């Protein structure tokens, strides 16, 4: 048995282990999964001197309350998150993007994300987790990944099999920027929609529905009229695809999406905006802006350079 472990006092609403995700499995029906907000996932690992592809604890809205037992270890939280760290005699208000040393008996209480959805808790070491297809990312729908493919549960104990010897405290000044528009590339069924429907898609503000999760984000507020066929022959999907079913309300495919779908695709979210898209909480307003493929590729390159830059400064 491990001498270093976490006890889950309160699991939070949707708390799972995630890493870089798994690929080469769409053809058998298994989605990518992995951390929803990839940039914040990477930063969390870097702040605690982990390999960048290590597993972290991802939470949505309300996070977990955990108690740590064992030798000293670093922890860090990324995202826009309200949390506290309770030590023997004091309780400190935690700051995101800073690592903290915790010791035997300390508690981390992640109260909630602030006007965003996902946050990440990384510990400087390695959780003792089961890998499936080279990833421990949990897909709760197919029960794939570590923790029997399930969310964290109250009373659970999670062992660490390794603690990093590098315990340098790290810090970065990263701020999660909000963007005005979510940029999209025209979908393969764009012409299934009426002129008015296309106009609504680019000009109106949609509201993120509460029926959104790691599989998909449902939008409401304006209906997009289909003039050709509300079904297509089922075909492959990727994350970021915006499908419009018969009721006219768009649905954006997210990291745990079904791999095949039969609704027309009006657009696809540009990769550059995916991390920020997933952080839009229910009630947020979304406005789409069309960009072309070559601009999308350039913008992603810049975003990726910025991520690498951020990481190298930590």
């Amino acid at each position, binding site marked *: 048995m491990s001498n270093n472990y976490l006890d889950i006092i309160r699991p939070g609403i949707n708390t799972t282990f995630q890493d870089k995700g798994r*690929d080469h499995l769409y*053809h058998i*029906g298994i989605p990518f999964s992995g951390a929803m907000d990839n940039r914040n996932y990477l930063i969390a690992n870097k702040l605690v001197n982990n390999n960048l592809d290590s597993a972290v604890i991802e939470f949505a809205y309300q996070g977990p309350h955990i108690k740590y037992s064992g030798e000293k270890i670093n922890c860090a939280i990324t995202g826009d998150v309200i949390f506290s760290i309770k030590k023997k005699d004091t309780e400190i208000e935690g700051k995101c993007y800073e690592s903290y040393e915790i010791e035997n008996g300390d508690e981390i209480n992640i109260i909630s994300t602030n006007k965003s959805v996902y946050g990440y808790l990384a510990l400087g070491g390695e959780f003792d987790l089961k890998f499936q297809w080279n990833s421990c990312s949990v897909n709760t*729908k197919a029960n794939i990944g570590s923790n029997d493919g399930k969310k964290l549960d109250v009373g659970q104990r999670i062992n660490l099999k390794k603690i990093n010897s590098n315990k340098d405290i790290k810090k970065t000044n990263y701020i999660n920027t909000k963007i005005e528009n979510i940029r999209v590339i025209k979908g393969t069924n764009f012409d299934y929609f009426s002129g008015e429907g296309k106009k609504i898609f680019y000009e109106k503000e949609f509201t993120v529905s509460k029926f959104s999760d790691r599989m998909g984000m449902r939008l409401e507020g304006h209906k997009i009229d289909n003039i050709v066929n509300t079904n297509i022959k089922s075909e*492959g999907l990727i994350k970021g*695809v915006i499908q419009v079913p018969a009721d006219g309300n768009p649905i954006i495919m997210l990291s745990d999406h079904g*791999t095949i779908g039969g609704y027309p695709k009006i657009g696809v979210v540009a990769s550059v905006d995916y991390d920020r898209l997933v952080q839009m909480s229910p009630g947020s307003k979304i406005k789409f802006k069309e960009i072309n493929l070559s601009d999308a590729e350039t913008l992603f390159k810049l975003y990726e350079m910025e991520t690498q830059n951020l990481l190298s400064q930590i």
Partner: protein
Amino acid sequence: MIKNISNLGDAALYCDFGNEVNKSINSQVIKYFKTIKEKKYKGINNLTPSYNKLIISYDLKKTNFKEVKNYIENINAEDSIDVNSKRLEIPVCCHGNFSIDIKRLEEILKLSREKILENFLNKEYFCYMTGFIAGMPFLGDLDENLRAQRLETPRVKVPKGSVALTEQFANIYTFESPGGWNILGNTPLDVFDSSKEDKPNLINPGDTVVFKEITLDQYINYNEQ
């Protein structure tokens, strides 16, 4: 042959093989899928074959649309690998407890239960694709007399193992999931097993499937044999 290649967003190729759904077009899709999968081109991280399309996703950090398109256009899928497929018999129990939508099917199809089962069982179906949920096979084509639309309001929970019909296709729910297909029976067989990382899917694109009826007793005892 691929009729047209376009982009699906900035990180996937959309290869269009035509609009019809038939075995010959689908076999082309599967041939391309298997060839590309073998070759492991840098940056390609997923392939999704379906009836008549192949989606090729790639890591935008490693490659881009132009490179992957150029690569795919110069691939010779025709003389590459044989479509290595198998024939499988799937036991299905159509006892009243399992054929949840039999009444609905009788009404829509204007056929008796016996006639529906006779038209469905012991026929060869081709697996066009797997997916939506892990391991779910899309099998076709059903007899002309068996073609029914999806439920208007999908069920929140379809039981694991359900064998269900829609339009010219049959499928198997590999685990409990939401779904709107017409449920005709249930198989005790594990069609998806995530503990078998090499081969989690029992049925793969290109395979042939025949449904064989079993009784409720055989169903109950199936996994104890």
